[in-house]
C-alpha cells in the first residue's frame, strides 16, 4: 500500500504541502465569511460545513484514511453515526419541550 507511494518521494511530500495550503485557504475563507456576515443566517451551517471539509482533508491526506481498507472507514462511519444519533435523539427532547 504505502510502499508504492514512498517510492515516489516528490509526490509524497508535495501532497502534504498542497493539503496544508488548502487548509489555510479554507481558514481564510471561513473567517472572511464570518467577518463579512455573508450568508447571514446560514453562517453557522456554513462555517461548520467548511470545518467539516477541513477535517475531511486532515482525515484523507494527513491521516491517510483514503489508503485504509474498508474496515477502518466503516469503523469511522460507525463512530460518527453513533455520535450523530446521540445528539439527534437528545434534540428530540430538547427541541420539542
Amino acid at each position, binding site marked *: 500500500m*504505502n510502499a508504492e507511494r*514512498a517510492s515516489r*518521494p516528490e509526490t*509524497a*511530500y508535495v501532497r*502534504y*504541502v498542497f*493539503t*496544508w495550503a488548502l*487548509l*489555510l485557504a479554507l*481558514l481564510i475563507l*471561513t*473567517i472572511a465569511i*464570518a*467577518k463579512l*456576515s455573508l450568508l447571514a443566517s446560514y*453562517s*453557522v451551517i456554513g*462555517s*461548520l460545513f*467548511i*470545518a467539516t471539509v*477541513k*477535517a475531511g482533508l*486532515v*482525515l484523507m*491526506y*494527513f*491521516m491517510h484514511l483514503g489508503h*485504509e*481498507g*474498508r*474496515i*477502518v472507514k466503516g*469503523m*469511522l462511519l*460507525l*463512530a*460518527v453515526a*453513533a*455520535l450523530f444519533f*446521540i*445528539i439527534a435523539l*437528545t*434534540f428530540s427532547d*430538547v*427541541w420539542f419541550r
Partner: protein
Amino acid sequence: MERNSDTESIVHAGAESGIDYTGKKIGMWLFLFTELLFFGGMFLLYSVYRAQYPAEFHAGAQEENLLLGSINTTVLLTSSFTIALAIAAIRRGSRTLSMYMQLMTILFGICFLIIKYFEWSAKISNGIYPDSQLLLDMGKGDILFFSLYFVMTGIHGIHVLIGVVAISIMLVYTWRGAVSKNSFIRLENTGLYWHFVDIVWIYLFPLFYLVT
C-alpha cells in the same frame, strides 16, 4: 505483507513472526473513536445550549479574540502538516528531517498552549471564570457560553499537552533508533492522535470565535 483480513477467510496476522502493523493502527483508530465520543458529550452540551441561547452565544463569540484564535488555528494546522512530514520522512529513512519536523510540531504545540494561556489570563483578570461573581451576574446564556469555553478549550488544551509529551517521547525514540524506517508505527499512531486533536480545534474555532 499485511492483508485486509476481513475479505479473506484465511488470515494469520503475523502474531508469530513480529508486529502486526495493521492491528496496531486499528487499535489507535479505535482509541480515537473513544476520544470522539468523549469530546462528543461536550459538543452535545454546546449544541443544546446554543439552540436555547443563540443571541448570547453570538455575543460571546464576538468578544473572543479573533486574531489569537486564528493564529492558534494556523499553528495547529501547520503542526499537523509537520508531523505528517515527520512520518513521511522516517519512512524514507530521513531520520534527521523527521526529527526536525517532530521538533517543529512540538514547538507549534507549545506555541498554541502559550497563546491559550494569554487568552485565559485575559478573561480571568477581567473576572470571567467559572463561578466568579461577575459571571454569575450575567445572563444564563452568557454563563453557559463562558463555562463551555473554559471546559472545552481546557480539556482540548490538556490533550494538546499530552500530544506534545507523546511527540517528545517519539523524538527521543527516533534519535535512539527505536523509531526507524522499519519500525515507525508508534510515530504514525502518535501522528494520528495529533491530527485528531487538530480536528477537534477545527470545530472549536468556529463554534467559539465565528458564530454569527
